[in-house]
């Protein structure tokens, strides 16, 4: 019964289209080349941005080896999903000051109520790593629950 109600509510929501889901990839890859997928983050876009900024600040202050020390739990779990090469490239980016000047996390200027993001780490057949994300922007009253957003993002 619960499942039926959830399905019906999803159908109702999609008919009214009070949300958009925007999918992005860090590089092109086809689904056939994916061997595994791990969800690195699911939550508000604002908290995601704060976590990225926190990681970048730690890399700048503590270097690429010790940057995990002192991270908040949310940022730590996200940071653990990055490869060593990824962390090094973030460090290089910080090195030329391109991020330092823009470290304040953005606050979404949308009128919409909810902006959630799911970030995924993808392992491809050739062993390389890619990242993908699904950005959810919704405007519903009362707001979508986290569970509803997760279902919409992954349906």
């Amino acid at each position, binding site marked *: 019964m619960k499942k039926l109600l959830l399905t019906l509510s999803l159908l109702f929501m999609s008919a009214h*289209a*009070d*949300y*958009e889901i*925007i*999918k*992005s*990839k*860090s*590089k*092109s890859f086809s689904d056939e080349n994916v061997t595994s997928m791990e969800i690195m983050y699911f939550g508000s*876009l604002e908290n*995601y*941005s704060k*976590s*990225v*900024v926190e990681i*970048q600040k730690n890399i700048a202050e503590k270097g*690429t080896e010790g940057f995990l020390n002192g991270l908040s739990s949310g940022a730590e779990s996200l940071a653990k*999903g*990055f*490869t060593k*090469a*990824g*962390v*090094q*490239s*973030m*460090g*290089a*980016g910080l*090195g*030329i*000051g*391109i*991020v330092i*000047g*823009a*470290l*304040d*996390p*953005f*606050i*979404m*200027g*949308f*009128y*919409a*109520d909810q902006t959630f*993001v799911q*970030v995924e780490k993808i392992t491809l057949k050739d062993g390389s*790593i890619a*990242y993908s*994300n699904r*950005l959810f*922007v*919704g*405007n519903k*009253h009362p707001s979508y629950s986290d569970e509803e957003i997760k279902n919409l993002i992954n349906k």
Partner: protein
Amino acid sequence: MKTIYSILMILTLASSSFADTIDFKSDKLTNVIEIDFEKDDNIFTFIYDAWLKKSAYEKQYNQYMAETLYAVSTYGKQNGYSYFAIVNEKMNNLVGYPINSYQGLVQYGRLVPIMKNREDFNPDIFGGNGEETIIVNGRIEMKVIYLKEPIEGLFLYNIDETVTDTKKAL
């Protein structure tokens, strides 16, 4: 550590070798695109000199965005870059902003009709009041940083893909 210095050197050297001007008129872009370069931060600001009107918002938004991104990506390509990040304050790819394609920005533009205050439509909806998104006071002002290499874990615009995608839309 050696890897970091190598990447750092590539990025730094590359940032000082930009062509001074570019002629976008030959690319049949409908409006002048001004380029302003803030050398201290390696930030280029592309200003699309046309105003988004409420009556034709979606059509104009898609066209103007294609032309702006085409200018941004061809300029980067001509100067030997492979990636760029939009770094406007509220849409900063370098601090995790997740959209990194023309198609994504088009979809982003479609968000307008689902905004709760759509009856009070304001072309500044993505920025407004001088806030730092890509639409400032009704026109596109896109701040970008060019990169030779991707930064893993961040969502950056691939220049070749952006040139291809936007050229189809021009």
